[in-house]
């Protein structure tokens, strides 16, 4: 199908630059090469609205190809310029957002979100997953999300608050904060930073936390049933739970069981402190 140009120009003030198009269930939105700030909000209409912030002089183009709508800087004037845009989308719409230096805020969507950037904070909230975020140097925040969350920032923190779903988070040199995260499968790994996990433990859940240089602080329910495996090269382990070491696995690795041991947790810290606490 020949792509057709839906709209160009967010060049004017509040109203005249707005663009509204009708969309059909199954359509997805791809934002490419975006630079600046992008706010995406879900709404209960089968329409997509793109609004430029007052004062913007850059232009973006919205094109359709099959079921894919693409928003990108227009080739004439938009490239390399910063745009601040607010996009309203139907809640069901799947989003794929990418840009080099872009701050992204997404909320109230349910069709799945994927965001990728080099710099700029990424924030996804009040949505249903899957959520997939990859940033080279931006801070990542995911709050009030149901569904699988995969988030990675090489250079900054990743924060997940009130997430229900499987979690896979990674940072190169940032902290990972997982507060009230309810996951049956969780993996958190940072090289240079702390990991803090505070959440329920699911029966038969699998939890893996790995830190190179930093602390791991884990708060779990008092009645959690967990087969724990702990390993460190140069660090100490503190537990608020009375524990019985079952196996000393050589080096500085050992395992023990809490409750019925139905779930498993592995905490590895190369250089740092491991703290196991009871949730409050």
């Amino acid at each position, binding site marked *: 199908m020949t792509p057709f140009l839906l709209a160009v120009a967010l060049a004017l003030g509040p109203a005249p630059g707005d663009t509204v198009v009708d969309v059909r269930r199954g359509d997805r939105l791809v934002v490419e090469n975006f630079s600046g700030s992008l706010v995406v909000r879900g709404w209960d209409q089968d329409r997509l609205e793109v609004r430029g912030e007052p004062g913007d002089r850059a232009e973006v183009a919205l094109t359709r190809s099959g079921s894919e709508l693409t928003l990108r800087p227009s080739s004439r004037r938009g490239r390399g310029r910063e745009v601040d845009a607010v996009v309203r989308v139907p809640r069901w719409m799947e989003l794929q957002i990418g840009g080099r230096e872009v701050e992204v805020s997404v909320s109230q969507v349910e069709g799945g979100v994927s965001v990728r950037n080099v710099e700029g904070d990424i924030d996804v909230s009040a949505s249903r997953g899957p959520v997939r975020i990859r940033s080279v140097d931006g801070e990542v925040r995911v709050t009030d999300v149901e569904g699988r969350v995969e988030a990675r920032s090489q250079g900054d923190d990743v924060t997940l608050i009130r997430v229900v779903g499987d979690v896979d988070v990674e940072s190169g040199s940032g902290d990972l904060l997982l507060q009230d995260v309810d996951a049956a499968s969780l993996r958190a790994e940072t090289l240079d930073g702390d990991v803090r996990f505070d959440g329920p433990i699911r029966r038969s859940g699998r939890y893996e936390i790995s830190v190179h240089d930093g602390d791991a602080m884990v708060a779990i329910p008092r009645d959690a049933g967990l087969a724990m495996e702990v390993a460190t090269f140069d660090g100490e382990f503190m537990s608020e739970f009375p524990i019985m070491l079952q196996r000393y696995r050589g080096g500085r690795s050992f395992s023990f069981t809490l409750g019925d041991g139905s779930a498993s947790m592995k905490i590895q810290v190369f250089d740092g402190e491991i*703290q196991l606490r009871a949730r409050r």
Partner: protein
Amino acid sequence: MTDETDHMSRFPPGDAVGAVPIEATDVQRAAGGDHQAFERLYRDHVGRVFALALRMAGDRAAEDLTQEVFIRAWEKLGTFRGDAQFGTWLHRLAVNLILSRRETMRKRDARHVASEGVVERLRAPTRRSSGAALDLEAAVQTLPDGARQVFVLYDVEGYGHEEIANRMGISVGTSKSQLHRARMLLRRHLD
């Protein structure tokens, strides 16, 4: 590794802030989960922590950083073993945290043009300092990041160049030249 206690012995001794016996009790209470005891610790120490954050990281970041310092302190109360003043321990923690956030703060500042006058905000504090000190407070904010941080650590907080170089990941020579730069810039602001 972020365990401040590991570095304690290498730090210069800090000021004793507050009455020791009362503090020891409040620290113990706080470590046992007593929020009110922790609030008392907060009230006793917030001025010093906020001042440090303000001078090191600037007006915009200071409030967030101060809150983060106290939250981190709460989480790390278990590593405070009572072999130093609580104030000293807290101060180390604050310096470490603020320095570790430099990168993030810089990025944030670059993205937001300062919208509020620094001087305006500085006049608001309840505990007012003398006129000259106020001028210096505002003048410090105008220094370039590196010079400002070295100046605050060396001249205000009393750290040595080696310690600063170590903490900031710069050479001793750079620390010295940043200090010189800061002082030369600041002297113009004094009457």
